[in-house]
């Protein structure tokens, strides 16, 4: 039976080239659209991750904390969850940095009697998916160390980033779901139309004693083959567009600022699998409805 089904499926594909091309192209477009969104999402998330890495927590100590305690405090902070590294910045170094930063106004600092700046630690965090909540809790824990006078981190930018990222994520999920539903529906519709053009054939097969399974299986095989072909076409086109867009972007904009990536092999396989599932699902939905009505 199985080779017979494949024989039928391949015959049908070769005989209904137009119909099959339509389904495959539809799936290819679905893959291109969904894929390009995923690509966009992956790469912009990359950019935001880059920015997140740039965020530091400054910990200022009381002036009267003795120098011998510094390593101990540093160790304590290093051991906290989420901390990547802790750099000690002595008051002297801080003044130097301040002078550098102030550039134009450096003259202000020329004639100081003593360095009024405190010793400090600069903390960099482990990049993570939910850094904003973590920063806050980390800051709270650091604040419990008695020698710490004050903690500073870019609250203003943090709010903005955190907002942006939330908007991104929400839109990302919404788009993802939307695209998936849309793909399944469009594919199901296309399959339904294809079935509709072949309703006579299906009816005839039933009348001569073919079971639903005998009729259905070649359709499923056809749909899955089609959608696999569509998926491969989609990924290929996506890759070509990606490469050509990238070469334009790289020329125009600071190249090497971030690494724009295409899908990994795993994600590509996943997309292919998804498109095959979409084809299967479209076939299933249409056939289910169709075999009842014919």
């Amino acid at each position, binding site marked *: *039976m199985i080779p017979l089904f494949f024989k039928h499926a391949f015959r049908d594909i070769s005989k209904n080239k137009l119909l099959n091309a339509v389904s495959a192209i539809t799936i290819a477009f679905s893959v291109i659209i969904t894929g390009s969104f995923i690509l966009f999402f992956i790469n912009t998330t990359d950019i935001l991750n880059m920015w997140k890495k740039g965020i530091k927590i400054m910990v200022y100590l009381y002036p009267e904390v003795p120098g011998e305690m510094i390593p101990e405090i540093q160790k304590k902070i290093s051991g906290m969850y989420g901390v990547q590294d802790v750099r000690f910045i002595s008051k002297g170094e801080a003044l130097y940095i301040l002078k550098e930063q102030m550039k134009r106004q450096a003259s202000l600092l020329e004639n100081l009697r003593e360095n009024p700046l405190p010793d400090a630690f600069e903390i960099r965090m482990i990049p993570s998916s939910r850094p904003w909540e973590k920063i806050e809790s980390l800051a709270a824990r650091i604040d419990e160390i008695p020698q710490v006078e004050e903690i500073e981190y870019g609250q203003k930018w943090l709010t903005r980033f955190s907002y942006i990222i939330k908007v991104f994520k929400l839109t990302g999920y919404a788009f993802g779901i939307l695209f998936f539903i849309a793909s399944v529906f469009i594919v199901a519709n296309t399959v339904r139309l294809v079935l509709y053009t072949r309703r006579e054939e299906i009816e*005839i*097969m*039933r*009348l*001569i*004693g073919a*079971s639903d399974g005998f009729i259905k299986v070649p359709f499923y095989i056809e749909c899955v083959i089609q959608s696999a072909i569509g998926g491969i076409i989609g990924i290929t086109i996506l890759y070509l567009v990606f490469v050509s867009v990238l070469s334009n972007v790289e020329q125009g904009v600071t190249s090497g600022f971030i690494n724009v990536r295409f899908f990994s092999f795993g994600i590509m396989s996943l997309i292919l699998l998804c498109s095959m599932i979409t084809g299967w699902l479209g076939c299933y939905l249409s056939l289910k409805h169709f075999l009842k009505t014919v």
Partner: protein
Amino acid sequence: MNIGNSENSLIRMFHVYRRYGKYSALFDINFDVQKNEFVFINGPSGAGKTTLLKLLYLGEPASEGQILFDGINLSRLTKNKIPHMRRNFGIIFQEFKLIPSKTVFENVALVPEAAGKSGRQVQKKVSSVLRAVGMEDRQNAFPLTLSGGEQQRVAIARAVAGDPKVILADEPTGSLDAESAGMIMELLKGFHIRGSTVIIATHDTELIRKTGGRVVYLKQGRMQQPSNL
């Protein structure tokens, strides 16, 4: 003829109606077919001949009444048993119903394939029935490239390709010239001799006269007294 003897009945219809809206295409049909009978259903255009055949092969349900096939009540058949039941019938449809996207060979091959026959058996069977209707040299043609009569002959080949118990033929010679028609009737008689039951719906009294067999007459959905022409 022994209509009363239900022992040998293959098909029995009791008070069968088929309604389309208010219109009754079939009205209180009581009809028995014995095993290995050769029956003509005669009647003018729109009499209900095709509808009667449809009820037999489960193309449509009866609106009222009972139809038994080999003791099985057709209206009680579960959906998944229908394909199996249909394989008892070899149907020559009035409008042929060939699949345009499949070749002559593939169209005929569908029947033994659907019945689960092996590739070699299919090949052999299809060739033999195509030879019987004189269409073996057109086996790779598509139905739409065939003449009306050629299509009809392919439809006949498909009907007999499953070695059915019953052949239901709806106007099987309507598109054929006298010579081809004679050939086809010989073919159907051959099946009859080898044990098949044959039911032929036709408006062609000439054909009935030439062939001979039991005749039932339908008019406006009602079955008249059986008569032998």
